[in-house]
């Protein structure tokens, strides 16, 4: 089971801030997770249609989308940060 967190407009499109998910074994990278999430319903399709607009963190460390999920417990998906 993965804990998945969504922030900003990704959270709004999905309609929730957090969920526990067990993706299929074929999903091994963050990009594959994004592709799979895009098939999970209308809000998901909207949030994950364009991976170029997304950024990710594994266990609270920024990663690029091509990295393996490995043994991560927490995946966060969100737009590029705009703080400061």
């Amino acid at each position: 089971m993965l804990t998945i967190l969504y922030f900003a407009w990704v959270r709004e499109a999905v309609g929730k801030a957090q969920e526990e998910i067990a993706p299929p074994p074929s999903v091994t990278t963050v990009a594959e997770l994004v592709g799979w999430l895009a098939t999970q319903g209308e809000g998901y399709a909207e949030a994950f249609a364009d991976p170029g607009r997304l950024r990710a963190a594994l266990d609270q460390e920024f990663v690029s989308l091509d990295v393996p999920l490995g043994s991560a417990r927490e995946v966060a998906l969100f737009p590029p940060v705009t703080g400061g």
Partner: protein
Amino acid sequence: MIRVSVQEAPLDIAAEHRALAQSGVGGIASFTGLVRGDDGVTTLELEQYPGMTGRMLTRLAEQAAERWSLAAATIVHRVGPMAVGDGIVFVGTASAHRADALEACAYLIDRLKTDAPFWKREWQGGESRWVEARACDDSAAERWDTK
């Protein structure tokens, strides 16, 4: 001495300066980011990735303290709704050398823009939009890599 805070309360610039002055050194540099009222914006809302923000800000402050001679570094970032003119973020550095204080301060605000998980949303009355990341923030952050 490193101080990091992610808070809903308004920034207290005088208190942050007083705390930095406790380090006993000769100079304090600071940068404060403010909510602009451009384009009819009435409220700015800041969302964070709780847990990750504090850790990333602490790491940035530690990196600055390794790179420059600092007696103290403070990063305070507000979250939640804020009004036009309010402070969003305060970065302060104390050093015996004013160039160190000023450069570390520039480093911290540049890196914070790209390395800390915050998202801004602008409200114009009842309408809102998420602020888009700016390419110039990426290049401002990257200039510290090539030095």
